[in-house]
């Protein structure tokens, strides 16, 4: 592999891993492992919140390249495959591997429309919902998850997507809970927004901070905060909107 090609390939791996939800140390490790397997043990990697950089040193000089990182869209299957490829030095040509990755469809796409609301209902049971409460959570989460899958395609900011979905989930949980005569209304409403929690951002914030990537950790923490604001604001609007429905219930 040529110097420029290798830099491009390792940057692609880094970018895809960051976008799939990896922490900074894992990305650095994978990129360095990939280039060292191709004979460039003397390399430097810099992972920033919105870009990755690599410098490859050779006898003729050095080659530095940078790639921009887009929005994080959790895909642990992709992350796992990329990490496996970069770390285990598999003897597969990079172009073939890249094509395979890009063509691999995310797992459980159809099943997730049922499994995610079931997960939310189980979370509701953990909080203290009864079976009718769990049913209300299931229906509300199903509706909000379906809407999320459509709204995301419009390319809106994730904070706004969270706001819309939290509003819809909380309000529909209220309506379904009232219709089924659920006592623990708050538990049902809290559980219906469960799937919106920015879990990766929260965990990666700590992961990056503890491993010394303070800048990336802070950026992720801020992002988690803004995504959470979206949920809180959507929930707040729904609670306010509930009052205008009091004439029905």
């Amino acid at each position, binding site marked *: 592999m040529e110097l420029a090609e290798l830099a491009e390939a390792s940057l692609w791996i880094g970018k895809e891993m960051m976008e799939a*939800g*990896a*922490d900074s140390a*894992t990305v650095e*490790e994978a990129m360095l492992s990939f280039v060292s397997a191709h004979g460039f043990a003397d390399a430097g990697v810099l992972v920033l919140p919105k870009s990755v950089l690599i410098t490859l040193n050779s006898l003729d000089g050095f080659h530095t390249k940078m790639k921009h990182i887009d929005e994080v869209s*959790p*895909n*642990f*299957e*992709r*992350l*796992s495959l990329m*990490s*496996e490829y970069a*770390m*285990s030095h598999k003897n597969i040509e990079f172009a073939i591997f890249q094509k395979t990755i890009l063509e691999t469809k*995310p*797992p*459980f796409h159809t*099943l*997730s429309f049922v*499994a*995610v*609301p*079931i*997960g*939310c*209902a*189980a*979370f509701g*049971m*953990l*909080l*203290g919902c009864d079976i009718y409460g769990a049913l209300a959570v299931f229906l509300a989460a199903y509706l909000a998850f379906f809407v999320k899958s459509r709204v995301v395609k419009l390319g809106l900011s994730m904070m706004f997507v969270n706001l819309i979905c939290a509003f819809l989930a909380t309000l529909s949980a209220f309506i379904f809970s009232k219709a089924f005569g659920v006592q623990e209304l*708050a*538990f049902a*409403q*809290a*559980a219906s*927004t*469960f*799937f919106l*929690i920015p*879990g*990766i951002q*929260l*965990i*990666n*914030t*700590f*992961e990056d901070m*503890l*491993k010394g990537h303070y800048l990336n950790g802070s950026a992720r923490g801020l992002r988690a905060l803004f995504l959470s604001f979206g949920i*809180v604001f959507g*929930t*707040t609007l729904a*609670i*306010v909107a509930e009052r205008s429905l009091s004439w029905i219930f």
Partner: protein
Amino acid sequence: MDILNPIFAVIAAIGFSMVFKVRKEQIAIVGFLAFGGFLVRDIFMRFGFGIELSVLAGAFCVGLLADLIAYKTKTPLQMLKVPAGIPMIPGSLVFEAIKNLIAFVSSPAPDGLKLANFFYFGGKSVFILAALAFGITATSVIFKKRQL
């Protein structure tokens, strides 16, 4: 219902795994981790430890087991830890905090109890979230050299 809690945690974790698109082969491991973590949390709570300490212990258990499994199976740690730890998030406390804040802001006269409740539930949520995140990530720092 307490005995069933770890089972519900498994279902919730599996549901969350699908949001994160975890590999099919890893789903069972995520379920096992969620079960273990929630069981430890429940045991600690039964012995009278506070919710914060119990979540810290449960999250540490998830992190430790995930670290060992990730080392054996050469899997990125996040893939196992994140969905397994999520069921311990204090959803109802956050919701109560929001509700009390709205009630305080929209009441005709200042109500100290509502404001106190907001800070109580909000503060408790922050502590639990911090315990959860720290418990899950602490092991990857302790076993830094042993990762992939």
